[in-house]
């Protein structure tokens, strides 16, 4: 009997302790949630107010007008169809090419053992470490020189294909790394039996490995899409015609030379962020698995 009571007391004590701990954690998480949500909420809040009112009464004034006028204005000034089309023209080919080439290299370095396969993998991964700002001048000069040599000045420079190529080059390192880690988790026996059955290297790649890679490719595609979609830098330095640039630079159109209407800009930012948000919510599962991709094997 007394043991029972004691046990019960211990259990209650433990439960209370756990409750306090839980409360602490909830509080902690709550604070972080607020810190994370605040900028987004503030952006949305700002986007609903006219700049004229903020200018006259200050940032923290009580609003007299709350409406969607900034959105209407932003949509008309950003020329959304043009810029979204430009973004698609860059993002879609870039993502597919990255995945295609990345999976090819990953396939070779992880499935076949030859002298330089690890060094090759390292080389591609190391490419990731070079900051874009460091290499953009040589890349730019290369594009110009190539265009001049061929007689078509806009062959790569000021052309969406030039931007696609540079994205492929830059993202391929990461894609190779992730895909090769993933391929290493696929049992060697599958490859061996394929080879025993007389599959050529190409069949081995297309018929055996690619189908198995599908989850990795899907999550990588989501990550790549977000990254390339969000790029502003390459399109800025490798293109001279603004109307060819992607949606990220359309945001600049809301910025005046001297006057920046931050309320309008907030509305524009919300609009520009929408597609990535939609992609994220549709492919949430792949995204989360994408974040941990390759973290267990490497």
């Amino acid at each position, binding site marked *: 009997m007394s043991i029972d009571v004691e046990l019960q007391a211990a259990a209650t004590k433990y439960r209370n302790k756990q409750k306090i701990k839980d409360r602490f954690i909830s509080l902690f998480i709550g604070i972080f949630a607020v810190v994370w949500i605040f900028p987004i909420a503030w952006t949305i809040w700002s986007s609903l107010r006219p700049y004229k009112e903020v200018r006259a009464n200050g940032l923290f004034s009580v609003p007299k007008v709350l409406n969607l006028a900034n959105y209407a204005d932003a949509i008309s000034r950003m020329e959304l169809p043009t810029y979204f089309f430009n973004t698609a023209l860059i993002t879609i080919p870039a993502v597919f090419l990255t995945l295609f080439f990345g999976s090819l290299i990953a396939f070779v370095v992880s499935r076949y053992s030859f002298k330089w396969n690890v060094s090759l993998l390292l080389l591609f991964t190391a490419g990731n470490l070079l900051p874009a700002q460091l290499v953009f001048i040589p890349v730019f000069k290369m594009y110009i020189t190539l265009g001049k040599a061929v007689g078509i000045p806009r062959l790569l420079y*000021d052309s969406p294909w030039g931007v696609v190529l540079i994205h492929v080059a830059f993202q391929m390192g990461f894609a190779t790394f992730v895909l090769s880690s993933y391929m290493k988790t696929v049992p060697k026996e599958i490859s061996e039996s394929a080879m025993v059955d007389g599959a050529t290297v190409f069949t081995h790649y297309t018929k055996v490995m690619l189908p198995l890679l599908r989850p990795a490719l899907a999550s990588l595609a989501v990550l790549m899409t977000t990254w390339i979609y969000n790029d502003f830098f390459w399109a800025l330095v490798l293109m001279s015609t603004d109307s060819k640039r992607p949606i990220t630079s359309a945001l600049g159109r809301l*910025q005046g030379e001297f006057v920046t209407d931050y309320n309008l800009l907030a509305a524009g930012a919300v609009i520009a962020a929408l597609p990535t948000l939609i992609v994220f919510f549709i492919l949430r599962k792949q995204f989360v698995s994408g974040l941990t991709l390759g973290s267990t094997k490497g």
Partner: protein
Amino acid sequence: MSEVKNGISRRSVLKGAAVGGLGIAAGGSLLAGCGSDGTGALAFGARTVDAGPTAQLKALVAAYTAKTGNEVTYNATESNAFQNNLSQYLQGTPDDAFQWMAGYRMQFFAEQGLLVDLTDVWNEIGSQYADSYKTAATGLDGKQYFVPQSWYPWGMHFRKSMFADLGLSADTVTNWDEFLKMLDGMKKKGLVGFAAGDKGGWEAMGTFDILNARINGYQFHVDLLAGREKWTDAKVLDVFTHWEQLIPYMNPNVLDLEWDGAMQLLLQKKAGSMLMGSWFGGNFKEQSEADYADLSIIPFPEINPEFGRDTVDAPIDGFCVAANGANNAGGADFLKFAGDMEGVQAMLDAKDADGKSIPMTSANKGQDTSTYDAFQKEQLAVMDEATYITQFLDRDTRPDFAGPVVGPAIQSWFKNPKDVNKIVDTLQAQWDALPPLA
């Protein structure tokens, strides 16, 4: 879908390579053919996406096309992006004519051979401009590379109604003592005397410019920015000493406000005066006509009687022709039209979306100044009083010095004015460490 796209990519790249391999000469002659007949279709790069200036430029382009029949492709880029990318833009595949600024910023690119010599254009339209504009359009080699469009002065802006309340008038704030007295009076009334913002790093350069010009004169200022004088000179320290006297009258959050934050203080009648370029008047006009009518400008007060109020920062905006463009002669022809009174008139006649005229102070002598509104007339008076025109610090010195070095140096001075000796040492050291111009 993707495979189709990939296919196009690979094929067109290959095709491009093949065409190039076959006929570099053909490509070359094609370009030459474009340029030789003098006019023809051209591309124009606008350095703005703002509604007012866009309406003006589109009107200019339309008038040019109507007159000559030459089609003009209009490419607009947001001003900061355009500016940051100009070097690549000019080396790559630039538009034939583009919007740019006078002074050092133009000379910098002219020296690198990226701009087209416009001496012939100036021979035709030069008589329509005062000499100071021609000087501002001239490169270091004595040739012209720039056609001016418009200008605006930097000066002390205030609200007429507030000045009247304080018992002040434009002629009672002419020298440093009167100026400090004015600021004192404002402070006693609980106002910010000298509204300032320097979050952007460039705003306070205007204050440095005018103090240096007032204390040490135009020549020293220009020589300092060109590297012919030293930042460690006692004269420069004197500028900061004067500047420090203004700090008690500034809003305390100078480094948290961009220029428009400072402007809001003036608009909301929380500040009595602000040193700024008159371009911001458009904001007052947008707020209400009453606010715009209340806005006024006077020259920065005299400090050193030797120099009086002989210098003003008045950046000139205008156009250049890119040497790497496809149609240099077409670009020059377009600029001749833009600089001629006919083109200027087309810009002046442009209306904004509400059908109102857009204020512009043209560099062309032909603009009828009697049509100026009151604020524009005051700007002209500020301009007329000055013998010397400077372009603003970030246009008068090397681009790799103004933004990356002077801007942060002034910001760190605001944080701790006592560090001034260290700051001027750094400025000089950084100038000395700059690579020679290519």
